C-alpha cells in the first residue's frame, strides 16, 4: 500500500535541539535554590550496618540533610531498594547527603562512620549452588520475576560434571518441554553437547541516571533519565510515595537506556525524598562509577545445550539448561526468553528447557537490549556452524533450512507468531552480501591475518497491544498527536505519530507531537523497550486517529446534512463524496467539536481507557476535536521481530584482534516506518552487538568481590576504531498482518545477530575453533591460534 507519510524520512522535532546543545537532559535542568545530594554507597559486597554515626556530618556547615533507608518507601524484598542498611553489592546506595554544594556533601560523607558486619558473598552462581556455598542474600539465593525467593543447593554428586568441564545440572526451578525430545535425539545424524558461558554486561548508557526534583503546590516535579514516559509514571509515583496525579514527570530527553531506564527504578526518587525533607530543589548527579553499580546489567549465563540435527541440517531436538547470574535482587527473566528464542528462531520440533536464576553480589540485573535472546544467539549460533561442519553443509544452509516462518509454534505453550520472515531475511543477505564469494575466500591468509565469515540470527518479541491513543485537532486546524512514548533516540515517538497523520491525510507540517512531560496530557502508552514501540503505538495512534475521523464525519453530517458515510476526507477537509463543495475544514470541524462538546471534545470518553488517559482527556476537554481510544484491535500471537547479520572479518592470529571488512544487517520488521531510523537501529545495534561479542567485559574478583570493570576504559564499549567505516542494512518489508500499517519492531534482534555473526566469523577464521564463551577477547584468540590452553576455566564467570 502506498502511504504519503509512512515509509518516508522526516526531520524529527527533537533533533535540532540535540545538535545545538539546547536539548535538556536531567543534569541540564536548574531550579531556583537548587542544592545537591550525593550517595554514600557500600564498599563491601554483602553485609549489614551494625553501627552508624552521622553526627559529625550533620554538624558540618552547609550540610542540609541526610536521608536514610528508614525514611523512604523501599519496595518489598527482594526487589532492589532505594536505600538500604543491608547492602548486597558494592556501590549500593546506603544513604544520601544533601548540602549547599557537592564538595560539602562529599566531605560530609567522608565524616560518616559506619561499622559493617560482613556477610558471605559470591560472584559465581555455581559457587552458591555448592553444598554449603555462600548465598548472596541472607534470605535465599534463587529468585527472578515471578519466581519466589528461596534457597537452593545442589548435591556434591550434581557437581561431578564439573570435572569434565561441563555444566552440572542439578535441581532446576523452571522446566518445560514439548514434542518427543528423546526421539528427536535418537533420530539425529549429529548431536552436540556443549557447555558455554556468556558474560554479564553493564548498560553504561552515556548519560548517567542523574535526577532532579522539587515540590510545588503539593506536587513533585521530577526530571528523570528515562527511556519511557507514560509507562513508568505510576511506578515512579509509588517510589516517591504519592498518587500518580501528584507527580509531574519530565523525560523529554534521555541519554540512552538500552533497557536500563525502561521501567520505574528506585534511585530516581531519592532527590524527590530529599527535596521534600529539606524544602529545596535537589539534584542528584550520578557519576560514571556509580552508574556502573546502580545502572543495571545484563545477566550472564552458564549454560549447556544438546542439539540434534538431521543429515540435511534440520533441527531434530534441543535440550537447554541455563544457570542465570541474576545479581542480588529480583533481576530479570533472560533465561526464559533465551529458551523461547531457540525454540522460535530455529522452529525446533522438540525441546526441553531447564533453568535456574541464582543471586550474586554484583550489580542488580535488568533487561538489556534483547534480554536472553541475544545472549543465547551468541551461544548457539557458533554451535550451528560446528554442527554444519560435521554434517558437511554450509553456514547459510543450516540456517536457511531451520529458519522460522509465520506458521511456527514455539516454547512451552506452543505459541503462535503474527508473522516471521527470517528465511527471506537470510535470502536477502545471501544475495546482497555476496555470501558465496565471501565464503569461498574465507580461510585466506594475508601475513598473520586470516579471513573469516559468519552469519548470525536473533529474535525479540516486538510489539504489544491494549494501550491508549490520543489525538486532538485544535480550532486552528493543527493535529496534536499526544504520545506517552519515551525518547530513547529511535525517533519512534514521531515515527508512530505519522500513522495518525496518515489516517487523517494530514500535511505533516500541520502536525505537532506532544510528548516528554506529563503536563502535556499524555495517554497511557507502553514503555519504550522490548522493540515494541513501532508496533504498539502505530496501533494506538491508528485507533485514536480513526476515532477522530469518525467524529469529523459525524460533525460534517450534523452540519451539512446526510449521514457520516456520505463524507470523505482530503487536504484537511471533510467533504461530501457526491458533492465536494459541501465541505468543512478540519479547523471548522474542531471549532464545532468544541461547541458540540460531549464526546466530540473530550467531555465524555470511553470507559475502557486507562486512568492516566482519562485524566489527560479531562484536562484537554473543550480544546478541540478529541480522538481517543484504547487499542482493542486484538492480536493472536507474538510479534516476531527478527534479524540476520552477515559479517566478513580479518583475524590477526598474532594480536588476536579482528578487523571487520563488511557487515550487512537485514531486518524483518514488517512495513518500514522510517527508513533512516531503521538504518540507525540496524547499524547501532550491530555496534553494541560487536561490543557484546568481543570487547565488553564484566570482571569481578572472586576472592574479595571487587569489580575490575566500572569505567568505560575498562569495559571497552566499541569505538570508531573497532568498527568498519561503513555498515550496510536492508529490510524484508513484508507487512505484518496484525498491524494496521503492517509494522513491527526490531531494535533488539539487530544487536544479537551482529554479535553472533562476529563470533561465528572469528571461529571460522580459526578453522572451526569454538570458544563457547563470550566475549572472545584477543588473548583468547592468541591462545587458540597458538594451541595454548585458556587462562579461564570452562565454567568461570566474571573473568577477564
Amino acid at each position: 500500500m502506498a502511504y504519503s507519510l509512512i515509509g518516508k524520512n522526516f526531520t524529527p522535532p527533537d533533533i535540532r535541539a540535540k545538535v545545538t546543545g539546547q536539548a535538556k537532559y536531567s543534569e541540564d535542568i536548574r531550579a531556583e535554590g537548587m542544592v545537591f545530594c550525593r550517595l554514600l554507597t557500600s564498599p563491601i559486597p554483602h553485609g549489614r550496618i551494625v553501627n552508624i554515626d552521622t553526627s559529625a556530618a550533620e554538624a558540618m556547615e552547609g550540610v542540609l540533610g541526610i536521608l536514610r533507608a528508614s525514611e523512604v518507601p523501599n519496595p518489598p524484598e527482594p526487589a532492589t531498594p532505594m536505600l538500604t542498611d543491608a547492602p548486597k553489592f558494592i556501590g549500593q546506595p546506603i544513604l544520601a547527603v544533601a548540602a549547599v554544594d557537592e564538595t560539602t556533601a562529599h566531605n560530609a560523607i567522608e565524616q560518616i562512620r559506619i561499622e559493617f558486619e560482613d556477610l558471605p558473598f559470591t560472584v559465581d552462581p555455581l559457587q552458591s549452588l555448592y553444598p554449603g556455598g555462600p548465598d548472596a542474600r541472607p534470605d535465599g539465593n534463587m529468585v527472578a520475576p515471578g519466581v519466589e525467593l528461596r534457597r537452593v543447593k545442589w548435591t556434591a554428586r550434581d557437581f561431578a560434571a564439573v570435572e569434565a568441564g561441563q555444566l552440572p545440572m542439578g535441581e532446576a526451578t523452571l522446566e518445560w518441554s514439548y514434542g518427543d525430545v528423546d526421539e528427536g535425539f535418537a533420530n539425529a545424524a549429529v548431536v552436540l553437547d556443549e557447555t558455554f558461558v556468556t558474560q554479564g554486561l553493564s548498560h553504561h548508557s552515556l548519560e548517567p541516571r542523574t535526577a532532579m526534583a522539587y515540590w510545588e503546590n503539593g506536587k513533585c516535579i521530577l526530571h528523570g533519565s528515562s527511556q519511557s514516559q507514560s509507562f513508568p509514571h505510576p511506578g515512579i509515583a509509588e517510589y516517591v510515595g504519592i498518587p500518580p496525579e501528584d507527580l509531574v514527570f519530565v523525560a523529554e530527553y534521555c541519554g540512552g537506556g538500552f533497557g536500563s531506564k525502561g521501567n520505574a527504578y528506585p534511585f530516581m526518587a531519592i532527590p524527590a525524598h530529599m527535596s521534600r525533607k529539606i524544602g529545596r530543589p535537589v539534584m542528584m548527579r550520578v557519576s560514571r562509577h556509580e552508574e556502573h553499580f546502580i545502572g543495571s546489567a545484563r545477566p550472564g549465563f552458564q549454560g549447556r545445550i544438546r542439539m540434534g540435527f538431521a543429515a540435511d541440517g534440520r533441527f531434530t531436538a534441543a535440550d537447554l539448561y541455563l544457570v542465570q547470574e541474576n545479581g542480588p535482587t529480583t533481576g530479570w527473566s533472560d533465561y526464559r526468553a533465551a529458551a523461547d528464542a531457540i525454540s522460535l528462531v530455529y522452529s525446533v520440533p522438540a525441546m526441553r528447557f531447564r533453568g535456574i536464576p541464582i543471586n550474586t553480589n554484583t550489580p542488580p540485573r535488568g533487561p538489556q537490549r534483547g534480554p536472553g535472546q541475544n545472549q543465547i544467539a551468541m551461544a548457539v549460533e557458533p554451535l550451528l556452524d560446528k554442527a554444519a561442519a560435521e554434517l558437511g553443509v554450509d553456514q547459510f544452509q543450516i540456517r536457511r533450512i531451520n529458519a522460522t516462518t509465520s506458521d511456527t509454534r514455539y516454547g512451552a505453550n506452543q505459541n503462535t507468531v503474527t508473522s516471521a520472515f527470517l528465511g527471506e531475511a537470510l535470502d536477502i543477505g545471501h544475495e546482497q552480501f555476496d555470501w558465496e564469494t565471501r565464503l569461498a575466500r574465507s580461510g585466506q591468509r594475508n601475513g598473520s591475518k586470516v579471513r573469516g565469515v559468519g552469519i548470525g540470527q536473533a529474535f525479540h518479541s516486538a510489539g504489544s497491544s491494549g494501550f491508549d491513543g490520543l489525538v486532538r485537532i485544535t480550532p486552528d486546524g493543527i493535529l496534536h498527536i499526544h504520545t506517552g512514548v519515551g525518547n530513547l533516540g529511535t525517533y519512534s515517538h514521531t515515527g508512530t505519530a505519522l500513522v495518525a497523520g496518515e489516517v487523517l491525510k494530514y500535511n505533516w507540517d500541520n502536525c505537532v507531537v506532544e510528548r516528554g512531560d506529563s503536563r502535556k496530557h499524555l495517554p497511557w502508552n507502553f514503555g519504550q523497550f522490548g522493540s515494541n514501540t513501532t508496533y504498539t503505538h502505530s496501533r494506538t495512534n491508528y485507533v485514536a486517529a480513526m476515532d477522530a475521523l469518525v467524529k469529523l464525519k459525524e460533525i460534517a453530517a450534523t452540519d451539512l446534512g446526510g449521514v457520516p458515510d456520505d463524507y470523505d476526507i482530503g487536504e484537511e477537509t471533510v467533504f461530501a463524496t457526491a458533492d465536494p463543495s459541501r465541505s468543512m475544514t478540519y479547523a471548522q470541524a474542531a471549532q464545532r467539536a468544541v461547541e458540540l462538546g460531549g464526546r466530540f471534545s473530550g467531555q465524555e470518553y470511553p470507559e475502557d481507557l486507562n486512568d492516566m488517559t482519562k485524566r489527560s482527556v479531562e484536562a484537554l476537554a473543550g480544546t478541540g476535536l478529541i480522538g481517543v481510544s484504547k487499542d482493542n484491535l486484538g492480536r493472536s500471537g507474538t510479534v516476531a521481530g527478527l534479524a540476520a547479520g552477515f559479517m566478513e572479518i580479518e583475524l590477526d592470529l598474532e594480536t588476536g584482534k579482528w578487523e571487520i571488512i563488511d557487515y550487512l544487517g537485514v531486518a524483518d520488521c514488517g512495513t518500514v516506518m522510517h527508513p533512516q531510523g531503521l538504518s540507525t537501529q540496524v547499524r547501532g545495534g550491530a555496534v553494541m552487538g560487536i561490543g557484546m561479542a568481543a570487547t565488553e567485559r564484566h570482571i569481578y574478583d572472586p576472592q574479595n568481590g571487587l569489580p575490575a570493570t566500572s569505567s568505560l576504559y575498562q569495559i571497552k564499549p566499541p569505538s570508531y576504531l573497532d568498527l568498519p567505516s561503513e555498515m550496510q542494512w536492508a529490510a524484508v518489508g513484508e507487512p505484518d498482518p496484525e498491524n494496521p500499517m503492517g509494522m513491527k519492531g526490531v531494535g533488539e534482534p539487530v544487536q544479537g545477530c551482529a554479535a553472533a555473526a562476529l563470533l561465528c566469523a572469528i571461529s571460522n577464521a580459526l578453522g572451526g575453533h569454538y570458544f563457547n564463551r563470550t566475549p572472545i577477547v584477543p588473548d583468547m584468540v592468541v591462545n587458540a591460534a597458538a594451541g595454548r590452553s585458556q587462562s579461564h576455566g570452562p565454567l568461570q564467570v566474571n573473568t577477564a
Partner: protein
Amino acid sequence: MSDNNSVDLTAPTSPPEPRLDTGGAMETLGRSKASRRSFIKGVVASGAVVSSAGYVFGGLSGCTPEQAATPGGVERLLRLNINGEMRSVDVLPNETLAMTLRYKLGLTGTKLGCDRGECGACTVLVDGVPNYSCSTLTHTVRSKEVRTIEGLEGANGELHPVQQAMIDELSPQCGFCTPGQIMSAVALLETNPSPTRDEARHALSGNLCRCGAYDHYLNAVMRAAQSA
C-alpha cells in the same frame, strides 16, 4: 591456502604491520598528551587534589570557607573568551572547564558522560583544538578562545554545516554524545576541509557513542565537508 576452512594456526607469519594510525591520529595523541601535562601542572599549581570519588565541585556562587583557604593564591575572578564573548566568572583553582561552562555560564550543551576523559561527551574547542573539558582546568584557558556547541549557530539561527549535516544524516540517536561529536568534527574540518572517511574516523575516535551511531556521524562529517 587451498582448503578455505583450514588454517595452520601455528605457522610462522610476518610481523603484523603496526596498527597505530595515520597522521591525524598521531596529532590527536600529541594533543592529548599536551593537555594532560597542562592538567597535571594546573593541579600542582593550585595545591588541590582531584578526588577519586565522582563529581566534586564547590559552591555555585562562590566557594566554601574551607576552599577559600586553599593555598596557591590563584586569582579567582577570570575573564574568559567563550564563543567570542568575554565572560567574567568566579573560578575555583580546581574547577574544570566543563563545570564552569555548565554550572556558572549556563552552557549545558557540553555534556558530562564520565568526568574522567574516557568518553568525549564534554569535548569543546580551545584555540580550535578539541579538548575534554572535564579534564581541563578552567584556569588553563584564561588567554584562549573556547568554543562550545552553543557557539556554532549563526547570528540569525542558521546552523553550522556540521550541525545541518547531522540532522540530514539522522546522526544523533539519544543525542547525549552529539555535542562532543560535533565539536570534534568542526575542529577536523577547520584543519582538514576535505578529509577522507578514514581521517574523519580517526579524528572522532575520542568520542564514544553508546548508541553506536558512528556510521551516521561519519556520514554527516563527509556531507558537511562536501557542502562547505
